[in-house]
């Protein structure tokens, strides 16, 4: 048993699913029974749908247990460790035999996520054992020049993973061109897309990879200071980053004369974001670091010339940075072998929504949406009908099922009207109303608009009002055209990406689901049975037991009925609040 390791996944998602208790249980048994196995922590491997995850590595191989609870922990010790018989029915992935969930991991190419779920993120030694900090040392030992580092990154074809997809190497080159006493390299970890968590997982799972990427970036552009702008909503990521920063400083990788090089001073600090979606925009993010309202500034001058504190600055996203060390270690060609002509390498997606295997996946560019949803994601929950995926969050759009052969690459995705975005992929089924989704996103952008540009500030508000009206059954003929007109004006007359792209969710849903809009407006019906105000509620007599629960729940006193007598809903009194539907224990309320 000495050589057996038990590794518990303690990312935010694992902890939320109860991994902390599982870890404590293993610890308790280990101490109580004086067992000699090694108990370790790691972060999220991406199989969030199977959390909490526990990996057992023994002489024979590795076995990943899913949905582990305290009881199962006891069983794993008893059967797997003491009796050497792995409990097959609990194992979701193993290198010893095929499992149903094995395809989830095998279908991926893990470059950015190479260490996530494999190392203890709070240990610099474990990162170093997997080629950690070798990339920067290679650059220094082989005396690779800054411009050559930039060339390598350009050759790899890496494009910004934060959304817009601008060439990372090119960006570095611009910044390298400007000489100044102070230069900043900034990591954008203000993951604002609601429904995406790639950056959180990366920072929690492999913080050193991001730091190393930043150090390499600093070397390439000549930055004097690094800043990680991280969402305050991610306490665990911030904690682990701080630990990583301390370790790197102790090793002499950050601070003064780093890596033993006289005069190379470079350190990184964390700046906690205060919650504003617009800060994903580079210039707004810098305003926020300077302590101001995060409002975008006019460009030019571009940040590469005059950014933070008017010094040359360069901003990349978390995922971009974590790719960098791998590219240096393995060469640009190794990275560029994946992907399509214009989009190289891999991309991490947060697969969520009505998907069976929700979690984090890293796939080569060029894979089709369908393959992600069905091969990795395992299909739709309850095998309902797949309707659309939403890519790119509030700046993106919905791609319908019939376009699911679309390749994941920057240009193909843009051609559909969506954007690649930072990697949120929300899967929707037949019960998701597309008008409601459009309204949801507009509600978000409307609140998040910084208010600087009139069209963005007021235009989004007007669009939201129209959409709300439509979902409440008050839609009018001409509303769709009005939405389209407003959309094009907002797009043209806004300064930053937030405004430019705010209409995308509306435009794509109109483009692909116009009939749904028309059903809402003309027939006052919601085909997905989602918009409450457009539904009628009736009692199914066969199922009603006459329990009076719905009658009591109805705030409008629209329900008639006594105990043990089938109830009746008076349509003229019903306010369509849905209280009866959610309270009924016998599924006796029908929606139409």
């Amino acid at each position, binding site marked *: 048993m000495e050589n057996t390791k038990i590794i518990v996944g303690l990312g935010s*998602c694992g902890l939320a699913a109860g991994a902390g208790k599982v870890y404590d249980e293993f610890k308790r048994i280990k101490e109580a029974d004086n067992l000699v196995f090694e108990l370790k922590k790691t972060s999220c491997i991406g199989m*969030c749908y199977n959390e909490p995850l526990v990996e057992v590595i023994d002489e024979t191989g590795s076995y990943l247990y899913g949905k582990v609870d305290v009881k199962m922990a006891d069983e794993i010790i008893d059967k797997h460790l003491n009796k050497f018989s792995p409990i097959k029915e609990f194992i979701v992935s193993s290198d010893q035999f095929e499992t149903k969930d094995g395809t989830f991991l095998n279908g991926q190419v893990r470059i950015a996520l190479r260490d996530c779920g494999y190392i203890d993120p709070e240990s610099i030694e474990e990162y170093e054992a997997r080629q950690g900090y070798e990339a920067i040392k290679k650059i220094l030992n082989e005396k690779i020049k800054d411009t050559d580092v930039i060339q390598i990154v350009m050759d790899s074809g890496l494009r910004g993973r934060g959304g817009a997809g601008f060439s990372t190497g090119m960006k570095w080159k611009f910044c390298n061109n400007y000489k100044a006493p102070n230069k900043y390299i900034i990591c954008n970890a203000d*993951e604002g897309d609601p429904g995406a968590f790639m950056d959180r997982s990366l920072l929690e799972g492999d913080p050193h990879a991001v730091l190393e990427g930043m150090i390499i970036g600093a070397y390439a552009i000549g930055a004097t200071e690094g800043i990680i702008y991280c969402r305050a909503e991610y306490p665990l990521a911030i904690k682990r980053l701080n630990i990583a920063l301390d370790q790197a400083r102790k090793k002499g990788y950050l601070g003064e004369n780093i890596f033993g090089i006289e005069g190379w001073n470079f350190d990184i600090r964390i700046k906690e974001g205060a919650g504003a979606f617009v800060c994903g925009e580079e210039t707004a993010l810098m305003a926020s670091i300077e302590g101001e309202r995060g409002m975008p500034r006019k460009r030019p001058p571009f940040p590469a010339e005059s950014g933070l504190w008017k010094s040359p600055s360069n901003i990349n996203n978390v995922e971009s940075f974590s790719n960098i060390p791998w590219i240096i270690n393995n060469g640009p060609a190794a990275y560029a072998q994946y992907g399509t002509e214009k989009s190289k390498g891999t991309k991490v997606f947060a697969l969520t929504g009505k998907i069976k295997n929700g979690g984090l996946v890293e796939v080569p560019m060029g894979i089709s949406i369908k393959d992600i949803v069905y091969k990795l994601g395992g299909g739709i929950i309850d095998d309902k009908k797949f309707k659309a995926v939403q890519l790119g969050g509030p700046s993106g759009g919905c791609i319908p099922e019939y376009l699911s052969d679309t390749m994941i690459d920057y240009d193909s995705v843009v051609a559909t009207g969506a954007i690649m975005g930072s990697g949120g992929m929300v899967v929707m089924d037949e019960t998701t109303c597309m008008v409601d989704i459009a309204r949801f996103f507009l509600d978000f952008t409307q609140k998040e608009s910084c208010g600087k540009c009139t069209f963005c500030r007021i235009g989004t508000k007007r669009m939201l009002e129209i959409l709300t009206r439509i979902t409440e059954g008050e839609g009018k003929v001409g509303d769709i055209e009005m939405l389209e007109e407003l959309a094009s004006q907002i797009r043209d007359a806004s300064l930053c990406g937030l405004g430019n792209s705010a209409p995308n969710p509306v435009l794509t849903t109109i483009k692909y689901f116009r009939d749904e809009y028309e059903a809402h407006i003309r027939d006052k019906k919601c085909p997905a049975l989602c918009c409450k105000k457009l539904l009628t509620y009736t009692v199914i007599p066969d199922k009603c037991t006459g329990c009076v629960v719905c009658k009591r729940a109805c705030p409008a006193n629209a329900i008639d009925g006594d105990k043990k007598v089938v109830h009746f809903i008076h349509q003229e009194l019903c306010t369509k609040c849905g209280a009866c539907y959610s309270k009924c224990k016998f599924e006796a309320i029908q929606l139409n």
Partner: protein
Amino acid sequence: MRVARLHKNGSSVKVLKPVDISLMDPLIEKYKGKKGSLIPLLQGTQNLYGYIPREAFQKLASDTGLKISEMYGVATFYAQFRLSPVGKNIIRMCHGTACHVQNVTAVTEDLIDELKIKDGETTEDGLFTLETVACLGCCSLAPVMMIGEETHGKLDGKKAVKIIKDMRRKEVTSKN
């Protein structure tokens, strides 16, 4: 713009208790005169009191020379800052995309029924404040809420209400 955030919860806590503003001294010491310190100062203040009291703005202005108007502008710009006191436990309901698709609205409605407060308000007994946020980063466990540091996933109305009820019960027993 989040104008709606400004005044909406002023009414839920009637009398504002005076705060001990001297608690802020070390914080001001740390950031005074440094560039870009406005947001960290406000964040630090909020960590002390749970919100940014009026007196704190005044103290910051007189001790650091920052303008109240500027501070107020920043405090109302970012979602994180609160201008009125909060309850002992802050319930952060995620209304991000993934949670929305998984019908978090119904869960929130049940919580609103149970707590008898609206978004941004605090319960009479001062135990809970309800806040909706956009994405807690645990989307694959949607719908999600966070109470304090603890995240609860795969919620439905019943489960969420039970969590609140359990916390209430604990609170009552610990008092007795």
